[in-house]
């Protein structure tokens, strides 16, 4: 990576013009979606990190004498059937749901993108094989496959990461493959090949950075889908095991008391909506930031 190769004069010129263009980029803070997304997600991360300081209660410790209390000054959103403070569990739940939602895109993003890049770049029988496998995986809906895989692998956070990875790599493969097929015919790639660079160098140093933006943008909507997946697993009793505070299992607990304490099932869902909104804004903002039109 540190080894520099002599750059032809005209290429150097290209680089300079690229730099000039990037300086002309509209600053990121004028991008409303991006800023809105960063504020929402920033707040949620803040809440997740400082949950223990933000509330005096324990998210797991039961206090049956104070079960199912209505909202009060001591318990802003009341307590659940085990006397645990709802607000505390909501804040602690942010840790679990946000962590899994964000971390679970990493494996499928890396694996799927690399596989898609290889398939698109080399084509031939390898491409055919990969795309047939992709077709097969596309036949299984995300939720169905995640539920079945978590059942097979056993509950727990590691199983959730594995199950999501096993299902969602296909989208990245499809996206990156399509982008690489277009990019590999472009002049700069043909030129790089003709100048004697290895396939690996052309693919990962020259094509890679240019085709990844679509993958990154998709990754943001994938985070939303993963959070939905985790929450759904929690609701079905297949995800993070109780008594850990997690939004999905909180909705399940709250459903029992929907006629008397409707806040309990409503609030965790609202938090999911806010989180998704933040991630979607971040995704829209990124896609605007990465699109060529913004570089005016």
């Amino acid at each position, binding site marked *: 990576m540190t080894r520099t190769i002599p750059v032809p004069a005209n290429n150097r010129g290209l680089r300079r013009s690229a730099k000039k263009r990037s300086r002309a980029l509209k600053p990121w803070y004028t991008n409303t979606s991006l800023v809105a997304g960063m504020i929402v997600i920033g707040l949620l991360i803040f809440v997740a990190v400082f949950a223990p300081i933000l509330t005096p209660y324990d998210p797991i410790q039961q206090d049956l004498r104070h079960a199912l209390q209505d909202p009060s000054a001591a318990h802003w959103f009341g307590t659940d059937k085990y006397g645990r403070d709802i607000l505390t569990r909501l804040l602690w739940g942010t840790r679990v749901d946000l962590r899994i939602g964000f971390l679970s895109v990493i494996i499928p993003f890396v694996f799927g993108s690399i596989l898609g890049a290889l398939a698109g770049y080399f084509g031939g029988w390898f491409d055919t094989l990969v795309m047939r496998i992709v077709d097969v995986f596309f036949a*299984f809906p995300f939720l169905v496959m995640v539920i079945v895989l978590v059942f097979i692998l056993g509950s727990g956070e590691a199983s959730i990461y594995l199950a999501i990875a096993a299902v969602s790599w296909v989208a990245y493969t499809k996206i990156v493959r399509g982008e690489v097929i277009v990019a590999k015919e472009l002049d700069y790639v043909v030129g790089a090949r003709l100048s004697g660079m290895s396939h690996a160098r052309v693919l990962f140093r020259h094509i890679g950075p240019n085709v990844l933006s679509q993958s990154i943008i998709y990754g943001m909507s994938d985070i939303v889908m993963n959070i939905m997946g985790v929450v759904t697993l929690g609701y079905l009793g297949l995800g993070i095991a109780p008594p850990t505070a997690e939004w999905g299992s909180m*909705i399940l607990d709250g459903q029992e008391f929907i006629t008397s304490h409707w806040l309990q099932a409503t609030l*965790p869902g609202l938090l999911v909506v806010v989180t998704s909104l933040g991630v979607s804004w971040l995704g829209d903002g990124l896609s605007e930031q990465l699109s060529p039109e913004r570089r005016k």
Partner: protein
Amino acid sequence: MLQRLSFIPVRLIQAIPVVFGVTLVVFLMAHLLPGDPATAILGDKATPATIAALRTQLGLDQPIWNQYGLFVSHLFQGDLGTSFTYQRPVVEIVLAAIPVTLSLVAYSLTLALIIAIPLAAIAATAPNRGRDIVVRIYTLIGQGMPQFWVGIMLILILAVNLRLFPVGGYGNTALEHLYYLFLPALTLGIALTPTIIRSLRSSTIDVLGSEYVATARSKGSAGVTLFRHHVLRNAAIPTVSVIGVTMGYLVGGSIVIEKVFAIPGLGSLMLNSIFTRDFPTIQAVTLFVGLFVVGVGILTDLTYTLLDPRVNLTGSVRS
């Protein structure tokens, strides 16, 4: 027309490897279970005799490709094993649940279209103005709501507080089914609307800017007539394939929604089987869902061709 339909056999042949892939994945599921598949399938309480019986049934003493061959040949005979919970052939149980889930899916799609088409039209006729922004906020929030939570909220508002609908169940007569399935179908329908609205909105904006719509307008066509005769069909073409893709999402969602509303369909069957560790039933439901999605893919391509005369036999669009 006939010539256009001649691509069907080609499309069917293309689907064969995918169908085999689906059966392979479902077959391999048993081998992903930790430990010996027969023991894992039957659980700790099984007697050595029942484990031995299942080992022979699955052909576990043979090489894995023979096991897969056995699985496929059983499949062709309509044999997916016996449910441990119900002690009946799995195929029978799954076939009984399929109509319930399919009617829920069809109902949801209908409600989704009833909501989405007017909203997309409202948004597309005034891009970036007030009503478009309202619709866009709706799609943004809509895609961020967990389906089961929407279901619980609808139960809270429409069933518990307003007492308009039952909180769950399926009913006995066709009319009752329609009544009982309304809330679950609305839940799934709402989940589907953001995707449909987005696709329909952007294609409607394209169509409204086209020359033939300008011609139709200059001839005096306007309002609903203009929409029905000139806009909708053309704007619907890209949306058809979007709907095709989301059918898998709809089936996946119905699994959870059936639990929320206690509907005796594939989803309840699958979740119950998961809790009783009834592995053959889980396998059968997964297989059916996979095959269903492949089938919908073929149907989508077919509809696409019928709607758009420019699609040629290979599926590419002539400009």
